[in-house]
């Protein structure tokens, strides 16, 4: 699972959970893939990303390197920044681990890079 996806997921549909965001991450296997860089796509994504959530997630996985804590102004033309964002959003992948609901503590396992977001029948 990529951190772009993590940035978009909540656990708000669990019964009794209100916000369910951000999900925390426990990772046992993290890999860094090589993904073609598309600056237009990344700069289109930046306004949709919750940046602090992304930053914390990369930090938690130990891949923060020199990713800035905030998005710079005029990021569209800042190729250096877009490359770092690209790396954090698309190249750092959680292969095995779990996502944890911040309110209920419910865990969602990640196997072979695919998160299992199924709830049980008593949680909906």
């Amino acid at each position, binding site marked *: 699972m990529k951190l772009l996806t993590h940035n*978009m997921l909540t656990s708000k*549909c669990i019964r009794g959970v209100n916000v369910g965001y951000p999900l925390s991450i426990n990772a046992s296997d993290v890999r860094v893939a090589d993904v073609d860089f598309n600056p237009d796509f990344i700069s289109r994504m930046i306004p949709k990303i919750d940046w602090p959530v992304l930053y914390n997630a990369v930090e938690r996985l130990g891949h923060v390197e020199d990713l800035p804590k905030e998005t710079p102004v005029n990021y569209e033309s800042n190729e250096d920044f877009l490359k770092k964002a690209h790396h954090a959003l698309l190249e750092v992948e959680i292969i095995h681990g779990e996502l944890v609901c911040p309110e209920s503590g419910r865990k969602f396992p990640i196997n072979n890079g695919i998160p299992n977001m199924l*709830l049980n029948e008593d949680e909906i």
Partner: protein
Amino acid sequence: MSKMWKKYLLWFAQEHVEFRVSEIESLLSLLRIHMKYQEKPRDLQPYWVVEFSSEDDAKLLASRSVSLRTCLELWGHEPSLEKLHNTLHAKAEMLASYFPPNKSFKIEVETFCRHFTLQEKVEKIETFSYLPLQGEVNLKSPDIRLYYIEYYGTKALEPPELPYDVFFGRWVADGLRQLSKKLSLKTRKFIGNTSMDPQLSLLMANQAQIHDGDIVLDPFVGSGSLLVAAAQFGAYVFGSDIDYLMLHGRTKPSRIRQKKRENDESICANMQQYNLGHKYLDVLVNDFAMVFWKDSLEFDAVITDPPYGIREATERIGTEKEDCVVSDEHLATHVPAKIEYGIPSIYRDLLVFSAKHLRIGGRLVCWFPVFREDYTERCLPQHPCLKLVANSEQPLSKVTSRRLLTYEKIRQPSQSELEIRDISIQDFREKYFVLREETRKERRLREAAVRKENWEKYKENKK
């Protein structure tokens, strides 16, 4: 400067004919191309005569179209060969500028709905010997390809003696027919029982008007055929499905000769097979009735083929039991109970989800099963924020068909429009099994009788 509009011939493949008009219209609006119709397209007729103001427009359209076979710059279109020769004779001087001595050429003969031998075709080519062609003939890789086409109608069993229409023109571009072969399910690493064929997947991606860099979701992703098509046109793709085993490539293999699935079968592997790995975002195991995406997330398109409950089950998480609790000791290995997720609920959820999570102008493209006798446009799923922009039928049997629906989001929904509970849709599945109940029972009895007979023959032989 005024633009020079020229006549072009669009020659289509005679497959999925119903989808042709909506595909071309969708592409014209996506690529912002102006095209004038010379005559209104007729249903089965495989060609359209149109006008473009620039050849680049024709090439651009062909570069994305799956229905289109070939596009020609049309030099002559007449009801008989004799008239065609007269027309071309009159234009010969003008045409000469296309044929400088250093350009090689080739003339191809195509006959629609009637077969001719090579010898007969060569004889037809020779009647064009008056054309001012100065270059060499090159059959393998000519600089200029010319086409002479004879059209004998669409009734293959009784073609007329002489063609209804004849055409002559210069080849401009081919459509994407080759791409369907490249993406063929026969050679794809990971497929399921209901994988969508590449032709229809690409058509769906065109209906969705996919741009480079779009974000696309298939919420009933299965083996991911629709994502392959979307990524082929430049989209970044997400998928979700309730079937854990399917997403992990652990269901029974779908190929008849394959005993076991390979270890690395997955949607991601399919994307890598076609060099589209960088367009793959993620797939999740997820019950579509339970939305996990954050509210502010917007997709550029949602393309999907929801289960109809015939070949794939329609299920969601839930239980009929009251106050059900999964005990701690069972929690680790518990498989959630599932209940029927009826077709009306699936489509209600799909439309409400799209009304919420598409950007304005973004498209939902999905299949919808119907009984042909009951069909009216009013029985299709509707939502006040989604405008139905295309609707084409693919027959499945004498009585059933599925329709490819394309909706465009026209405005943001109000709170009450996100809470719509009822969408009046007939449950296709219910009627499907009611209609067949008698015949299924009969079929089973017949099969049992055959088995019994065989068994008795076998016993006879043994004695």
